[in-house]
């Protein structure tokens, strides 16, 4: 990320560089960064769409895993190239907030799906009948 500062055109930055940085903040963007992010995103979007639209892999579970992996990679690409996420912006606080949010998101998603899956599983109609029979 530090290489970015070398690539900024100088005319955009009046003499008070350090001060200006505070006001507009959020790291400096470069054409190269945006184009890299865009091309990677196009590739990472096109492949999963192509996989699913051409009928998927051997099993649908396998396809789902591959598609999810592509999404995870693309989210990281967006975070780095479009949202300029790095460990130094705002003294590392944005990254810390992001990590905390990811932990909460993972708990919310996996917890809900896991619990509700088992709830559905245990409330199957056949199970209900069995329980009814066992009742006095």
């Amino acid at each position: 990320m530090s290489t970015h500062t070398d690539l900024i055109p100088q005319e955009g930055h009046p003499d008070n560089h350090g001060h200006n940085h505070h006001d507009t903040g959020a790291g400096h963007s470069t054409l190269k960064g945006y184009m890299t992010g865009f091309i990677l995103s196009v590739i990472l979007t096109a492949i999963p769409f192509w996989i699913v639209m051409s009928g998927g892999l051997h099993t649908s579970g396998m396809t789902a895993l591959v598609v999810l992996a592509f999404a995870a990679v693309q989210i990281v690409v967006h975070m780095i190239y479009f949202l300029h996420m790095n460990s130094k912006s705002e003294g590392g606080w944005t990254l810390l907030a992001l990590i905390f949010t990811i932990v909460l998101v993972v708990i919310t998603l996996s917890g809900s799906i896991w619990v509700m899956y088992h709830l559905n599983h245990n409330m199957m109609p056949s199970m209900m009948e069995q329980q009814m029979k066992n009742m006095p």
Partner: protein
Amino acid sequence: MSDIHASAIVSDTHASGPLQFHLTHEHHPENGTLLGFWMYLMSDCLIFACLFAVYGVLGRSYAGGPSGADVFELPLVALNTSMLLLSSITYGFGILEMQRNRLRPMLVWLGITGLFGLAFLSLEMYEFLHLIHEGNGPQRSAFLSSFFTLVGTHGLHVTFGIVWLITLMVQTGKLGLTTENKRRLMCLSMFWHFLDVVWIGVFTFVYLMGVLK
């Protein structure tokens, strides 16, 4: 603190100026707007996490109605995705022009971004109206309820993003690229790219995985 003491002592010894027990020059606190806005985005992320969880739980409860494979049109979704991705890169070009302090090219890129955003919204509205017209509205099944809530919330965010975009275009057009406007443009940049990140989750988790099986 040392400034206060120093000025107090200096004015005391000279005995000419009045005593000053406050900072004479304005203290500039480090601007926390962008960090604060990032906090907002993270909390927004939690809203979407809840809606994704709801869809994950209810997404297969069809109530005898259509499944994702029946109602989703992937070519339309692919087009929609490309619209949002293109709007992301054009906003990026706008930010690059902003860094070069070139107002007019920046406004042009922002306008193009807005048009891509509108195209995305139109396609989504078309999809929604088509579903409702076919009797597959949000009241049809739990799957469709959670689908409309999740995708609709994202669409609502894009709508407000466009409203914000137009506001900022007018504002920068009138006031120029001031420090405040640059900060606002950076905030909208984060918001816009964040919506694209959420859309990655939507097209993967809802559309692509919904068509499987």
